[in-house]
């Protein structure tokens, strides 16, 4: 995973609630055993007027200039609920989204974001609204900067401080490989396992 430190860019307000991972990437857009080639299917039922012909729906925010160059989404409650498909994160990233800022997220989706370096930021609904108002004034000029090191979002001359889990922060800042890190604990895992299986021999 590549380290994530500072993300700047255009943010698209997309405040629909309960946007599920089926909507982010419909099952039929997952066409190969691969983490790649998914951006075309991102939000396909909403993004295209005709899905088969890939004819864009001009009403969809990510098809509108300058939001078609967004690097973050401002999202509504429970964004990424539903199916565990990690393809939702891979599709967002491949399209160009580097951060999602919202009130709450589907829990599996949130974990998938962390493990792929797509920055998920939880703010109060008031703070999300502040960002929306700022962006909507002039989306091209009014860009947002997120600093994961200082845990600050800067917009215009204002700032919002956000909470972020410390271990996840380190994971993202350093771009660590979680498996290799855990494998260093293999002796502790083995000794736990021996006792655990001794207590529960049917496992």
């Amino acid at each position, binding site marked *: 995973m590549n380290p994530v430190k500072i993300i700047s860019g255009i943010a698209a307000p997309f405040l*629909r609630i309960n946007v599920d991972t089926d*909507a982010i990437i419909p099952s039929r857009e997952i066409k190969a055993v691969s983490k790649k080639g998914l951006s075309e299917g991102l939000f396909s039922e909403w993004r295209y007027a005709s899905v088969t012909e890939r004819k864009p729906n001009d009403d969809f925010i990510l098809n509108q200039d300058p939001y078609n160059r967004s690097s973050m989404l401002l999202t509504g409650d*429970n964004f990424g609920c539903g199916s*565990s498909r990690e393809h939702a994160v891979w599709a967002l990233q491949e399209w160009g989204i580097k951060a999602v800022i919202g009130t709450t997220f589907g829990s599996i989706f949130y974990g*998938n974001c962390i493990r792929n370096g797509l920055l998920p930021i939880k703010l109060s609904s008031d703070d999300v609204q502040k960002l929306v108002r700022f962006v909507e004034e002039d989306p091209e000029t009014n860009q947002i900067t997120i600093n994961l090191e200082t845990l600050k979002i800067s917009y215009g001359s204002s700032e919002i401080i956000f909470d972020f889990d410390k271990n996840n922060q380190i994971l993202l800042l350093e771009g660590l490989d979680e498996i290799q890190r*855990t494998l260093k*604990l293999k002796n502790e*895992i083995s000794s*736990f396992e021996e006792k655990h299986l001794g207590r529960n021999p049917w*496992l």
Partner: protein
Amino acid sequence: MAQTLFEKIWNQHSIKNLGDGDELIYIDRIFLHERTGSIALKSLEERNIKIRNPNQVFATIDHIVDTFPGRDDQTLMPSGSDFIRSLRKSANKSAINFFDLDDPKQGIVHVVSPEHGIALPGMTYICPDSHTCSLGALGTLAWGVGSTECEHALATNTLIKKKPKLMRINIEGKLPTGVTSKDIVLHLISKFGSNGAKGHAVEFTGSAITDLEIESRLTLCNMAVEFGAMTGMIAPDKKTFTYLEGKTFSPKGNDFIAAIEQWQNLKSDRDAKFDKTINIDCSNLDPYVTWGTSPHQAIPMNKAIPLSGQINDNTERKSMFRALEYMGLGEGEAIKGKPIDAAFIGSCTNSRISDLRAAARVLENQKVARGVKAICVPGSSQVKKQAEEEGLDKIFISAGFAWRESGCSMCFFAGGESFGENERVISTTNRNFENRQGKKTRTHLASPTTVAASAIKGEITTPDQLEQQS
């Protein structure tokens, strides 16, 4: 110190505190399917990382395989066979337990796992699938993960996790005749929202839960994720032990006796603390059905769709208008009596033998209404076989239902078979999301008996309404 059921299992699996709330948790079982498991296995192979304990890993094919009789690797979904073959190849190479298409143990992961004793009380259990929470019904600590997290578990037998908050949902009262655990869970989600248990692991307790049979408990816990929970659990009891006895992978002989001794302790202590408690009385509950495009948009069968004026939250109201437009419905309209185009019985929520028996009792000597496409997809090859031994297949077929091979089937549209545009489908599945069962398909979630009755009448209704008519 008093502990909850969740805490007992969690603490028994905590290898190490990693600081700042993170714990290294030992994972006992991993189940994979072709849709998300294939990519996890392939990704590990590409990185040359070995599966730590292949004998603790299981895999089967359920998600995109066709369910037509005589099916094989070829699927209606373009490229579906790539997923099947990729999983098969990786599974054979890594020597994990694999139930291929021709294996009698093939079926939907969350149906196969309890019926073969792969998930057991007190275990930690993961699968890259959100409905893994179903298995909490056995007192298993089971939850859905992404593919990358699954790779971590395959390589290390562990996950790094923070302990979630704990919620107790206490359900008392005798469930009225004809009302099922599906109705309980739809009621719960409609009352507290699809975000209602965000950040929590839920334990279901109370006399109504004790009364439920194991398969009904699986249905209830299955939709915990639709309530926003990490998982839903039920303390194992005599019903659980009887259910698990003699299953393929259940402990045998003295091991089973020793296991029961331990499993009996798997319940929340009397003074155990929960972060939140919800009390529900189910003695006057009606059958539920969804009207919108999120599982929380559900109402009792005899009630009307809410009026937008009753909803204070602006975003929720907007979401309601959008849902009604998608569903071709209006606020204040009755849901009962809406004509349907199709009826679907299947999915990890409601495709077990008891679901099929309940639906068959409604369908016996009846015919599906003209023009209604009706499909029954047993949840596993074993459920299908048992249903056929009991003659249920004949009841379904004679009523006009298609009788299929097992799999996830039309719970979702993966590019193969689907319901049509603007078709109204009453379905025993778990998600009524936009475009979930087909492009612009309108899904109404309900119990197997409600689906069977609606199929006969050609409109949304319950079995007792059929009886009143005849």
